[in-house]
């Protein structure tokens, strides 16, 4: 039975007014602008775009401001916003091999064509708090060097040429691409749906799942074959124009995990792969995603699937932080009627218990 709880409108309205003031904080401190959030808290914006599943820096910055920096709340706001717009269609698949690379490292080969490019990274920093950043910090201009014109092929493409690594699964012509925003999730789920789920999945959840595989819960011996970050061009087949029109470029991070072998009596052993791709500069996210993608292939690769990270129903049903927070946080909404019925039941049980005890005491006394 559902019973609506009424009343409290005034209190709710006043609570939201109080929230607006708490969000603004001390009004003698200048208000933060969307540009400031987008430019100076760029990685938070990247995360909100990725898990909000909507590439739009300005909207993500607004969501972060509105959510007072609570990124899951911001992701929730972005998801709700995307439901208000019509969908024109789907883009042509982006070509990460043609990325204008800003960062690209491989932990498996030191001499990759195009080289190892560190780009803007926290790696090799000392993780010491820097007091000079507290105020008025002006960084030195970036160093420059002559840019190479050589292409930067994906490391997996290079390994693939020698047959040392499995090739990527190809789609049949005209095969539809699964979309979990349109159809309810069914299990077992194909790899396209799994990757979509992981791409919008919570970074913390995927990190923990990926970490669990490294600690032995579904071990798959990973190497970071390649991590790359940069800009890719997006094209969209426009029905009215009659050809694929350029939409501009987006920033993406891609991670290719190279994992231990598979092979059969008829197929020579080769490395297997896990894949991660996300909006913006999201290295931890794509590495975790690639670990979990590989773990979820256990059944396909004939591995024992006993660990949580190998259980697609477990992973895919719990990766979405908007769903998760909705169900966890709904516990704080009024449950008075539910609770009254539980309370009634408990009183009855306690009465029965008391009656039984009294009965025993009577019996003992009688004996």
């Amino acid at each position, binding site marked *: 039975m559902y019973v609506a709880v009424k009343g409290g409108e005034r209190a709710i309205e006043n609570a939201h007014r109080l929230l607006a003031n708490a969000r603004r904080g001390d009004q003698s401190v200048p208000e933060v602008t969307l540009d400031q959030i987008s430019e100076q808290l760029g990685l938070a914006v990247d995360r909100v775009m990725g898990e909000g599943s909507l590439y739009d820096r300005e909207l993500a910055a607004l969501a972060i401001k509105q959510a007072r920096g609570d990124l899951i709340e911001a992701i929730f706001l972005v998801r709700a916003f995307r439901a208000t717009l019509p969908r024109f269609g789907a883009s042509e698949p982006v070509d990460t091999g043609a990325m204008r690379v800003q960062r690209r490292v491989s932990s498996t080969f030191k001499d990759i064509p195009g080289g190892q490019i560190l780009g803007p990274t926290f790696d090799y920093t000392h993780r010491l708090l820097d007091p000079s950043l507290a105020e008025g910090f002006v960084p030195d201009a970036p160093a420059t060097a002559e840019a190479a014109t050589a292409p930067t092929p994906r490391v997996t493409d290079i390994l693939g040429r020698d047959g040392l690594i499995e090739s990527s699964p190809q789609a049949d012509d005209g095969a539809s691409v699964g979309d979990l925003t349109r159809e309810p999730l069914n299990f077992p789920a194909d790899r396209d749906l799994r990757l979509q789920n992981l791409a919008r999945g919570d970074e913390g959840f995927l990190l923990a799942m990926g970490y669990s595989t490294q600690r032995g819960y579904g071990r798959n011996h990973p190497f970071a074959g390649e991590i790359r970050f940069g800009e890719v061009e997006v094209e969209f087949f426009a029905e009215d124009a009659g050809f694929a029109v350029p939409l*501009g470029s*987006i920033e993406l991070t891609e991670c290719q995990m190279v994992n231990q072998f598979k092979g059969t009596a008829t197929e020579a052993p080769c490395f297997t792969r896990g894949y991660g791709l996300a909006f913006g500069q999201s290295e931890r996210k794509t590495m975790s995603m690639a670990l979990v993608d590989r773990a979820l292939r256990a059944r396909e690769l004939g591995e024992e699937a006993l660990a949580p990270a190998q259980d697609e129903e477990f992973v895919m049903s719990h990766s979405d932080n908007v769903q998760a927070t909705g169900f966890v946080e709904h516990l704080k909404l009024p449950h008075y009627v539910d609770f009254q019925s539980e309370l009634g039941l408990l009183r009855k049980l306690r009465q029965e218990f008391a009656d039984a005890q009294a009965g025993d005491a009577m019996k003992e006394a009688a004996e």
Partner: protein
Amino acid sequence: MKLSIIIDNFDAASSVDQVTQHNNQQAQRKAAMAVLAHAEAGEIAARLRNFSLPAHQHLRMPESGLVMLRGRVGGDGAPFNLGEATVSRAAVRLASGEVGFGYTLGRDGEKARLIALCDALVQSRDHGGLVERNVIAPLREQLMVERRQAAAETAATKVDFYTMVRGEG
């Protein structure tokens, strides 16, 4: 018979020419769109200000929506849905008949309208050269300068890892 073969071949030849011309124009339009999509609406508008624009009308008023962005499994495999992006679009027709389409990431409808207008102008015999010289070319040059600067900054972070060999060969 002979004549008909010549006529058939002539037809075939001219339709091949048309296809080539069509493809060339499409490539040119795409190249212009690729530049315009990276520019700000204000920059395009500023470049068009020096231009005596021919009469035109809106075929599709600027509107915003979503496009589902796709990646590929492993970077080169079957496509999958990565997440959506906001996209704006518009369509414009010149009085002389050319129809231009504007598409761009983001929610700036005015930018989509300006791209559509430029796309129509690119196709126009009278304005194609002018819009390429006065709008597209300078914006392309600006984009290239920015990309070269970014590439140079990236290149400075390239590492030459080396492994130490201990002892004698």
